[in-house]
């Protein structure tokens, strides 16, 4: 099936990365570089108006983004080494950053499940992170899980989040997605595409589905994966077998997400493209 793609926004300063559909518009993150990295942004493309506006400024290289059922947007704030909650009132909150007594590394991609849990992949990075270097990065490259503690600390207080490590020994994981039934977690790293069976709060041993290097993983309602592979988009069966290869005319693709019937793709050139069948 051939899709027609067109650029709908950009180029902006810095690569475009994560995407999240808010029901009427497509949010996408821009990873600004250099000393003004704190000025990275999350932008919003409105398909009705064909216009792009700023959803959040000063996002400090927030990469992967996803909405929770609580209506808040969650993001992987790479240079601050944390998952951050972009609250509907415009503020932003910290969740939890320490696992096994140490601060985790740089999160890149996340997925929220129906229970409000946040699955994310975390890797070492040569990027200069914010602040004093008093929390050295650890060696583990992992899949981590954030979940709310059963009880709130006090009446009306913010929830306490618990962070646990579910898998490690990954090699620079860049993308992560849950199957529609939330029983399989897909992770793409430098070794290829892996699948983990989800057992409540744990993961079974990983299975390698493909050796292809992929950046973005986008699970479709039928369970197939739409993966970004440079200048191609791949439709993968749940087994990892390639079902279709689509040439992508927008350069190096980073990630993709559906907004309504349309497919949106971000690029390393800082652009947002839209595809239609």
């Amino acid at each position: 099936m051939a899709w027609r793609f067109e650029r709908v926004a950009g180029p902006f300063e810095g690569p475009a990365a994560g995407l999240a559909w808010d029901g009427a518009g497509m949010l996408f993150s821009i990873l600004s570089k250099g000393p003004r990295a704190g000025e990275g942004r999350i932008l919003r493309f409105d398909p009705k108006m064909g216009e792009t506006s700023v959803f959040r400024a000063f996002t400090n290289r927030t990469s992967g983004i996803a909405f929770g059922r609580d209506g808040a947007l969650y993001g992987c704030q790479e240079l601050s080494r944390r998952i951050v909650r972009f609250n509907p009132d415009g503020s932003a909150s910290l969740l939890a950053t320490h696992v096994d007594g140490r601060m985790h590394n740089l999160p890149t991609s996340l997925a929220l499940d129906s229970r409000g849990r946040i699955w994310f992949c975390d890797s070492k990075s040569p990027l200069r992170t914010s602040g004093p270097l008093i929390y050295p990065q650890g060696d583990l490259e992992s899949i981590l899980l954030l979940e709310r503690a059963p009880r709130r600390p006090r009446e009306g207080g913010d929830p306490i989040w618990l962070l646990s490590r579910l898998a490690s020994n990954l090699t620079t994981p860049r993308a992560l997605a849950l199957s529609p039934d939330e029983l399989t977690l897909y992770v793409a790293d430098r070794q290829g595409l892996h699948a983990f069976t989800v057992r409540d709060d744990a993961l079974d041993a990983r299975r390698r589905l493909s050796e292809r290097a992929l950046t973005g993983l986008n699970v479709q309602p039928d369970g197939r994966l739409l993966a970004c592979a440079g200048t191609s988009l791949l439709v993968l069966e749940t087994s990892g077998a390639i079902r279709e290869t689509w040439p992508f005319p927008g350069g190096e693709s980073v990630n993709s997400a559906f907004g309504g019937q349309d497919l949106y793709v971000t690029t390393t050139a800082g652009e947002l493209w839209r595809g239609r069948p």
Partner: protein
Amino acid sequence: MTQKVETDRAAPGLSRLISRESQLERIHDGMMFGEGPVWNRRDGSFWWVDIVGDTIWRRPRGGSAEVFMRPSKHANGLTFDREGRLLVAGWASRSVWRVEPDGRRYTLASEFGGRKINSPNDIVVQSNGAIWFTDSPGALYNPGMEADDLQQYLDFQGVFRIAPAGTLSAPIRDTVYPNGLAFTPDEKTLYVNDSRLGEIRAYDLRTDGTCGPMRLFHKLEGSEPGIADGMKVDREGNVYCTGPAGVHVIGSDGKLLGRLLIPDHCTNMAFGDDDWRSLYITTYHALYRLRVGVPGVEVW
């Protein structure tokens, strides 16, 4: 514990400020991120903070360190106003506050134009009573010392001035990560360093509380660990600024006189003792002191 102070890149004139026999004395340690040093001329006490450790420390004359405030909302820069009240660049509180004689905190600045300010970093008081502070975004981004609300609302990271009557203005808005700040001895110029850009900038002060255009005063040298963070000026106008490898001593003409090589990562410094000829240096983990040849600009 004391050790000899090592220097490098020394120009003629450094030895008059830092004697070759200078000893670096460690007087406190065990912190996670020391900062905010200031000498209290009124009672000979010395004050500093541990930002990550969320503590304001005080060391009475002749005594040992004691906790003044914990938690402190990750307090950062400290100084005293002309009435002798402790002023705090409140970092994670996203405000500047002072400690009243009865111990209560009184907020002096927390919003500008209806928006929360970023995270006050360091603070200094002018002889007319105006308070100047840098408003870097660190508490919004840096792990381990976060504000409750991590969102930056202002579209600049600048230097604020609280007029003696209490009005807040933003005379400097062209910095990326403003950090240490200090006046020249004649208070005609304000130096502001920028941690991201690794430079010290100079702004001439106007009598109406605004500033002239930015002049580059000095670009820090070296690739070792260390950034433009704390900064102080002595009575001859020499500038002491943290940077790669330790403390950089810069003449009033903007030229490097030499670098003091300090063990551990330097964060800030303050002149102190009754003759203002001791340079107290905070690092991530410790507080040091060494004697210098020229007294520092006094703190009120």
